[in-house]
Every structure is written in structure tokens, then in C-alpha cells.
């Protein structure tokens, strides 16, 4: 188990290293370094002023040297400073992360609940009208691009309601929970529902499929034969076993989301990690881009690792591979 863990952690670190290298190379191949120095030096800057700006930000150094500086900084817990305002990347991420976290966790709880509940209904009442309706709904929401659902939500729940005298939902934006828990909650309802609905469908299917498989097992028949109530058989014996694949999918999805929900944050103008990263890409602000990409990739790697550990604990066969 220890060897399994060590190998997985090392692999994860290698993946992160390679991901950051890719970010550096992309920045370098593109117009990034020149463009940043140009913008900073101003429109009428002389070549020497531009060169001075480039030097200040180490943009004149060769690729490997910049990458080395970045690595040394990271080992000191420093992600660098943004090119334009000199703000520390750690503090930029510190501001954006709570927003992404609020969005991701609330949505995750919601979609897990929706997905598992509808999946159970579909499996237990297989081939019923409810099953068919849920299957169709899952398919439609699964096919729906996030920004389409988000904007339609805004159209109906913000605009139509507001013009009909029911101004409840804000048109977007984010209120920190410290400022007003109620406004925080109110502002997150539509983003939560949007993200939850587009993400729930795979869970409905996963739960339904796994539960149908499990309910066909011998031990379920045994449980029924010894006279347990159907409800107890379904939930205590069936669902518990069926939830393993659901749990692993959940871990990975939450990991992906913690790196920023680019589209949802853009639709609802919430300055979370995804939104901040998109802004940084538009200004070629490498330290910010790489900081957020690093956080996002770490979240994915850690989530995968956690899922594998949980799996290995549950199923000894995995450890051998």
C-alpha cells in the first residue's frame, strides 16, 4: 500500500511538472513575452524601454532559465507576481478560490442528490413512465451546453421574473459570504442549479446502471428471501454497493471543477478561478495563468489519487496492479 501510494504521488508530481512546462512553452512560442513588455512600456516606448521592462520581468531570459526561476520560487511557496499590477499570484488565487469553491461545492451536493435520486427512481421503477421521463430529461440536460442553460436561466428567472415585478434573483455577480450570507446564497442559486443540471445526467445513468446490475446479484435475492422489506433491500444492500462507481466519478468531477468553472463563472460574471484565468490569458499574464493552471491540475491529480486510494482500500485487487 505504501509503495502504491509513493508511486502514485511521484507520478502525480511528474504530471504537474510536465503540465507547467507545457504552459511555459505555449507562452514562449506565442507572442507572449514581447506583447507583455510592449503593453507595460506603453504605446510610445522606445525599444530600450521595452527591453528594460522585459528585463525587469525576466522576460529576456531563455526559456529554461525562466522555468528554473519559477521552480525555485514554487519550492518557496511563491507563485510569483502578476505582470501588470505586481500583485502576488497567491493573493489573486486567494481571492478567486472561495468563489470557485462556493460554486463547486454547492453545485456538487445538488447534482449528486439529483443524480442519485433520479437514478434510484429509474432503476427501481425501471421502464415506468417516471423512468422514461427522467431518462429524457437526463438526455436533454446532458446535451445542453452550460452557457445555453445558464443564459436561459437568466432570461427566465432574472429577466422575466423581474419584469413581472418579482425581482428576486440578481443578474449575476458574487457577494462574499462574510458580507451577507443571504445575498451570497441568493446569488449562487442560479449558478448552482445550472452547473448541477448539466452535470447530474451521468450520475443518473451511472446510478441506474449500477443499481440494476447489483439488484440482479444473488445476495440481493438472499436478502429478499430472508424476508427483508423491499425498501431495505434496495437501499441498504443494493444502493450501498452501487454507489462505488458513483463515488469515484464524483471525486474526479469535483477535482476538475475546483480548477474553475470557466463557462459558469463567465455567464454569471463571478470572478472565480476560471474567469480570472480567462482574463489573464487575454493579457498574456503568465504568472497568473500558470498559477491557476497549476491549482487546477493539482486538484485533478489529487482527486484522482484520492479516488484510487479509496478504491484500493475497498478493493484489494486494485493494489496488485
Amino acid at each position, binding site marked *: 500500500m505504501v509503495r502504491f501510494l509513493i508511486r502514485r504521488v511521484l507520478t502525480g508530481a511528474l504530471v504537474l511538472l510536465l503540465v507547467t512546462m507545457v504552459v511555459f512553452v505555449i507562452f514562449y512560442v506565442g507572442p507572449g513575452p514581447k506583447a507583455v513588455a510592449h503593453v507595460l512600456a506603453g504605446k510610445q516606448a522606445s525599444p530600450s524601454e521595452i527591453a528594460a521592462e522585459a528585463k525587469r520581468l525576466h522576460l529576456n531570459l531563455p526559456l529554461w532559465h525562466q522555468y528554473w526561476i519559477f521552480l525555485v520560487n514554487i519550492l518557496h511557496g511563491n507563485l510569483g507576481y502578476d505582470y501588470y499590477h505586481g500583485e502576488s499570484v497567491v493573493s489573486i488565487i486567494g481571492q478567486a478560490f472561495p468563489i470557485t469553491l462556493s460554486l463547486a461545492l454547492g453545485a456538487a451536493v445538488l447534482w449528486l442528490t439529483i443524480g442519485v435520486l433520479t437514478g434510484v427512481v429509474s432503476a427501481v421503477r425501471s421502464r415506468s413512465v417516471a423512468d422514461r421521463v427522467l431518462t429524457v430529461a437526463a438526455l436533454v440536460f446532458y446535451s445542453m451546453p452550460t452557457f*445555453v442553460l445558464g443564459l436561459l436561466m437568466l432570461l427566465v428567472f432574472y429577466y422575466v421574473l423581474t419584469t413581472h415585478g418579482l425581482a428576486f434573483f440578481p443578474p449575476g455577480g458574487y457577494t462574499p459570504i462574510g458580507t451577507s450570507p443571504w445575498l451570497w446564497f441568493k446569488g449562487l442559486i442560479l449558478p448552482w442549479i445550472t452547473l448541477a443540471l448539466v452535470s447530474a445526467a451521468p450520475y443518473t445513468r451511472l446510478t441506474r446502471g449500477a443499481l440494476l446490475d447489483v439488484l440482479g446479484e444473488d445476495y440481493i435475492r438472499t436478502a429478499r428471501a430472508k424476508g427483508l422489506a423491499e425498501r431495505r433491500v434496495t437501499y441498504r444492500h443494493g444502493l450501498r454497493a452501487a454507489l462505488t462507481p458513483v463515488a469515484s466519478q464524483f471525486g474526479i468531477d469535483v477535482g476538475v471543477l475546483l480548477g474553475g468553472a470557466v463557462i459558469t463563472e463567465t455567464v454569471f460574471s463571478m470572478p472565480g478561478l476560471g474567469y480570472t484565468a480567462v482574463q489573464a490569458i*487575454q493579457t498574456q499574464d503568465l504568472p497568473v495563468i500558470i498559477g491557476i493552471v497549476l491549482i*487546477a491540475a493539482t486538484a485533478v491529480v489529487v482527486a484522482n489519487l484520492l479516488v484510487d486510494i479509496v478504491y484500493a482500500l475497498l478493493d484489494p485487487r486494485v493494489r496488485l496492479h
Partner: protein
Amino acid sequence: MSNLPPQEVMSPTAPAVPAEDDLVPEAARVIEGRSPWRLAYERLHRDRAAMIALGVILVIVVVAIAAPVFSLVTGHGPDQQFRTTGLHSDGLPYAPNARFLLGTDDQGRDILVRIAYGARISLLVGVVATLLEVAIGTILGLAAGYFGGAVDTLIARLIDIVLSIPFLLFAISLVSISHPSLKIVIIVIAVFGWAAVARIVRGQVFSIREKEYIEAARSLGASPWRIMFIDILPNVVAPITVYITLLIPVTIVAEASLSYLGVGVPPPTPDWGQMIAEAQNIYQQAWWFLVFPSLALLITTVAFNILGDGVRDALDPRTQQLFK
């Protein structure tokens, strides 16, 4: 080895022979063997939802091809701005009316005509990028699964990296350092999309390469290329086919998302994601500008997903028993 997984039982060892009755000798026709593909096709044909979805997709394809006809009939070019007839005096677009059936956008352009032209981009990127990622994924998956060892380690790590990269962020970065174009969008989507295909193919190949007939081929002196592409590939065609149909809607959404974020096909080329992004700014004054392109996108992805489900059920009878 006797209880093969269903997909391998299903998979044809030879591609389906087109039914050219005249070429088949009389004796062979008496006992007409139905190939696995033929059986799958017949199952798909009985799936009413999938057939309707296929019909919808054909309509969308026709609309895309016939986009100039929409232009011709309405007399409105896709990029033509009708500043007097298409915009109110205060600059706001017109709601759907007799002249502009689906209304006009913020620049006085005909939304119906632009949606018809936008179908071209969505379908083109959806199909081409999907085929590209399936081609890359299949080749790398075959190589990893067949050669194993160092080749497999390298490709498997590559798959891990690509799958842990936040797609949208990297896609935006890549597009932002080059000039956005149709070609770049397709390449970027394919660069990130192949890994999932490669992982599936790799897993399938792992189980197939231990089979006796592969050993037989090897002992007869077949080259690795021959074994990979002639002996193994036909056995993974069924899962790949399923994957292609399910990947197309994902790719269409990816393209629309890039356009929505402003890094897709550059304007003024009509594109659904871009229209929705533009509509975002004035949806309070012009709901039709947001709703119609959204519906076009949604109908397309739903149709492809239903068809994809149907193809999967048809090619893998086990899930069909489970789900129908």
C-alpha cells in the same frame, strides 16, 4: 478464453459486405448469413427514437448544405446588415416578423440565415475534429496496447497528462497565441480529445493481443503493423463506432464553448456559440437573439446523443437488454 466479452463476439472479422445481390451466386443466397453489422443495423432500424434523431440530423445537414438557399429566398446575406429595415430607430433589433422570420440580431442581420450558415461550422467541426481525435486516439491506443513496455508507459503517461489538463484554459491559451481560425479550433479540440479514445482502445487491445489467433499471426511472420491494423483493429471497430457518435455532440459543444468565450471561428462568420455570446449582452431587449441559436444548438446535440445511444444499444446487445 471461451466466454468472450460481448463486443468481441459482436465485432466483425470482415467489414460488412454491401448487399449486391447480383454478384452473389445462387447457392450462397439460400442460407443468407447476417453479418454482425447487418444485425446491428437492423436493431438500430427498429429503434424509433434513434431513427427520428437520424431524421433530425439529416434535416440539419440539409439546412447546412442549403444555407445559400435561405439567403436566396429571404434575399438576406449571412453578413448583410439591415440598418434601416432590420434595426429600430433606437438601434434595437426587430422581433420575429414576416420579413425576418426569426428576427434580427444587434447589427440588423437576419438570424434565420445566420443560424442556417452556423450549422455548417458546427457540423464541420463536430465531424472533422471527432474523426481526427478518433484517428489519433486509435493509432496511439493500438500502439500502446500492442507494443506494451516502454511504448505503453510513454503513451499512458501522455494520456494522463492530457486528461489532467484543464481543457478550456489550454484551448484558450493555444488559440490566443495564434490567430483564431477554423483550422486552429479543430486542431485544438483534437489535441485534447484523443486521450479518452486512446485509453479505451488501449484497454481493448490489451485483452485481444493475448488471443490465439494473434499468436498464430505472429508465428506466421506477420509484421506488427499487419497485426495491429489487419488483425486487431477490426475487433475494436464496434466500440470506436459507438464512441464516434457519442463524441460528435461533445465536440459540437466544445466548439460552441470556444466561440462563446471569443476564441472560436472569428467573426463575422456566422457561428452558433458566437451568436449566443453576442446575444448575452442584449437578451433583455431581444430574447429571440438568445433563444433561437440556443435551440439550434440544443436540438443538434440532443439528436446526436439520441442517435449515439441507439448505435450503442445496437452494437452492444447486452446494454440493450439492460436499458430497454
